[in-house]
């Protein structure tokens, strides 16, 4: 049955392709893509473009969110942390008209920004790692990436470092975190997997769909995939002994070797492929590994290739607004569905004009009205909102872990994050287990991220969490109940701390009803705190 539906959709999609008259003549996009405007728009200009399209299709924009919602959202999105009740109060009392812009600047300069986003990028890579040994480079990558984000290294330079990386990761030792992307894929399939990931992450193109046959829903030919893989034909990896039966990993250039496209009839045979970029321009033949990878980065990050900027724009916008211009955020292409094309191309040109400055780009997006609108869903969870509202997406495991610690104090005891550097030990720490339980692929569509019973059980019953909920002298609830004998006041502070807002009248009433029938005030507040951290809202962007 599903099969039939699929075939029908395939037919519909194919027809659409014909109707659009899209041909492979210009594989990197239509005429509009060639006339990118290389200037940086103001947030207001961008909003105008977006609203024009929203009005054209007969939609209504959501109102701007209030200050508390804004602070919580931007704080979680940029630093992965909750604002404190004091920060929320001061922000509400600040009457300067540019206070939101100032807050955005402040958060972008914080250490938490580089820490949180380094975790994000580590998860982007880790989600598709095909050889777990490569995870040895996970923590070193986080450290390296955090430093780049702190220095605001331009995105093209970060791409260059990751794609041309040579070096080692050693267990527990000083390691070169730049090798993570290359070392996530080892052995004979290395060239093919590395090519797929480089294309997916930095160009937003899932060219690996053309590995075995021409791409079923885009212009890419099978040869093009293998020509792309040929850039990595001489990228080698090997185990490096580290003593005590332990091993590290090394990525390096080999002196010979060519990539072969397997014959369809006999996979043991194949045709030698030479590097050629997606736009048809030839890469270096018979060249060293270094030359090949350098050439690939040069072609990718050239201003003539809009997909490099487009992939970043779509990913970042998708994370911040909850939906991308292309969905999922890493599946773009000349014949893929694109919404709000005019605004998108304006952003792509802008990111090029910014010379791939990540913070400048974030600042532009965060200052738009589009980002600052209220959340809502369409009629179905997967309906595209066209940026008339912000999508209420689920927090990633990193932001959720941090929020939980912000709300409850340090969960899991002083050794919750023991041995961060070694991924094998980290996996056994409380934080490691928590993040493993709650993680999802950050490139998934927000509407496809699902929760699980095991997650719900963890939040409901985990003894380490319950330990932080119980009222103890000196802990959060202990102090709250001692300092604020008035229930309404205590409730307001509890809500501000956990949900970054004040309780609505109905909520206060419901909590007071619970207080009235509870054995004592401590137990009642423990139950309320338990309920608040278990809400959908606590686990989501608002």
């Amino acid at each position, binding site marked *: 049955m599903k099969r039939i539906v699929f075939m029908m959709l395939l037919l519909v999609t194919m027809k659409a392709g014909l109707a659009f008259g899209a041909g492979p003549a210009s594989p990197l996009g239509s005429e509009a893509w060639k006339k990118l405007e290389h200037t940086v728009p103001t947030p207001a200009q961008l909003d105008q473009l977006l609203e024009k399209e929203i009005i054209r299709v007969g939609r209504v924009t959501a109102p701007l969110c209030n200050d508390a919602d804004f602070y919580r959202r931007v704080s979680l999105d940029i630093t992965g942390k909750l604002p404190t009740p004091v920060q929320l109060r001061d922000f509400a009392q600040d009457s300067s008209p540019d206070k939101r812009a100032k807050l955005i600047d402040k958060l972008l300069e914080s250490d938490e920004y580089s820490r949180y986003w380094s975790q994000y990028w580590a998860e982007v890579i880790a989600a598709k790692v095909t050889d777990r040994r490569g995870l040895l480079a996970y923590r070193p990558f986080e450290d390296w990436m955090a430093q780049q984000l702190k220095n605001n290294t331009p995105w093209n330079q970060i791409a260059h470092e990751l794609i041309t990386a040579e070096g080692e990761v050693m267990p527990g030792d000083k390691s070169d975190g730049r090798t993570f992307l290359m070392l996530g894929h080892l052995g004979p399939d290395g060239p093919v997997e590395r090519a797929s990931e480089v294309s997916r992450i930095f160009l937003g193109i899932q060219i690996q*769909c053309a590995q075995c046959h021409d791409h079923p829903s885009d212009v890419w030919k099978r040869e093009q995939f293998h020509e792309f893989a040929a850039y990595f034909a001489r990228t080698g990896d090997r185990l490096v002994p580290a003593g005590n*039966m332990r091993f590290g990993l090394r990525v390096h250039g080999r002196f010979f070797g060519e990539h072969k496209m397997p014959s369809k009839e006999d996979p043991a045979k194949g045709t030698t492929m030479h590097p050629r970029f997606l736009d048809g321009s030839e890469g270096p033949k018979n060249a060293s590994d270094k030359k090949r990878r350098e050439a690939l980065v040069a072609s990718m990050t050239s201003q003539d290739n809009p997909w490099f900027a487009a992939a970043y724009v779509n990913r970042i916008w998708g994370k911040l607004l909850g939906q991308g211009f292309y969905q999922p955020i890493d599946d773009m292409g000349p014949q893929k569905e694109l919404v709000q094309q005019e605004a998108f191309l304006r952003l792509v040109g802008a990111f090029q004009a910014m010379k791939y400055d990540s913070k400048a780009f974030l600042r532009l997006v965060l200052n738009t009205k589009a980002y600052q609108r209220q959340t809502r869903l369409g009629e179905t*969870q997967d309906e595209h909102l066209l940026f008339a509202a912000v999508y209420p997406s689920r927090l990633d495991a990193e932001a959720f872990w941090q929020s939980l610690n912000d709300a409850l104090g340090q969960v899991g005891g002083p050794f919750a994050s023991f041995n961060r550097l070694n991924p094998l030990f980290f*996996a056994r720490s409380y934080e490691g*287990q928590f993040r493993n339980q709650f993680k999802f692929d950050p490139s998934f569509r927000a509407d496809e991220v699902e929760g699980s019973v095991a997650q719900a*059980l963890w939040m*409901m019953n*985990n003894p380490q*969490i319950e330990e932080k909920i119980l009222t103890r002298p000196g802990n959060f609830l202990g102090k709250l109940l001692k300092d604020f004998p008035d229930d309404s006041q205590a409730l307001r502070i509890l809500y501000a701390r956990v949900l970054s807002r004040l309780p609505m009248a109905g909520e206060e009433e419901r909590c007071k009803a619970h207080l009235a029938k509870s054995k004592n005030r401590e137990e009642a507040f423990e139950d309320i705190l338990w*309920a608040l951290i278990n809400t959908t809202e606590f686990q989501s962007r608002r």
Partner: protein
Amino acid sequence: MWMHLDIHAGGLMSRRAFLGAGALSMAGWKGEVVAQAQTLRKQGLSCILLFMTGGPSQLETFDPKPGTPTGGPTKSIATSLPGIQIAEGWENTARVMKEISIIRSMTNNVAEHTRAQYQLHTGYLPSGGVKYPTFGSIVASDFPAPKDDLPSFVSIGTPGNTIGSGFLGMGQAPFVVNDASKLPANVSKANRLDEQRFSGRLSLLEDLEGQYANKGAKARVEDHKAIYANAARLVRSPNLKTFDIASESNEMQEKYGKTAFGRGCLLARRLVERGVPFVEVESRDWDTHFDHFERIKPLNSATDRGFASLVEDLAQRGMLEKTLVILMGEFGRTPIINPRTGRDHFPRAFSIALAGAGIKKGFVLGSTNAGGTEVRERPVSVPDLFCTLCKALEINPRKENNGPLNRPIKIVDGGKPVDELFA
């Protein structure tokens, strides 16, 4: 509503909506009949996968070569099946040999742990583009859920080590039990809350969800509530006692062996008895690159005892006809003994054991050459094995699940079931 969206419906539809569309058309009477037939057909079928992580040696399990240069000091022992010998250390399995089948001609070419473990769990090699589901998730998605609030797929002794449900989604993810001697993590009410307070918390949560639902996230709140309802049902379920192996007699616990693996096997039997369709139990530390012959002794002993007792117990309870038991690792070990008296990774020729669910009783398939370096007859590939498992569990191996980017992905790509293995 908008032309371009309608035309491109395929591109804009999510997996969720896609499956939903399928479900809607299934709601017709014809669909119901199909669904019922499937339930009837699968009634009582289940599968227990005993996975020996690290790669067990075929020469010290089911394909000993005593007296040859590659055989090492390992002797062979007679089994209840005349003429068939297996390695010493597997005396209990030798006793139940007439209940099981051995494949001595498994062959593959992946010699690295993580890739081979992935392949022997999913049937596919890892690929960046597609997260293939582990076999337990495939079975869980294809079988009716157990009636008693219990999960469809339980994985025992595999903390943080499961391949996971891949593109089938969290609904089919393994429910992990770290230690079979304790209740699963987080199923008991925290701090031994009494039922009154637990209900009080749940009802408070239910009411406090309203605000976010009203702020435009209603559907997300409903999903969240549904998951919490399932979790709360499990917490309160009288069937949680299924996880308590201490309620078995001491004699029974001794029979399976008071080891992590033995307890896992006993728990697997209890779960399958209550209708859980898939249980995986891990036996660890088979990666014996040095001191191989000493290190495998306790591994052999615990695994032999757990496996044989499970098969025997299932047979005595009349459950073996409906329960497929698989004993395997990700590859075998080199016939050549290395200078550190170890054996290294060897996917070219290795052995596995199967029992129950229509698998022949007392049968050996295939063979290797005198040194154990090559398969001599009836090679069985990984896709062949997965087709065989599907056949035993009455799953269509060519059934297509909806993968990422709406790409249809067969449960098994290629391969043929090994028909000789079926009675």
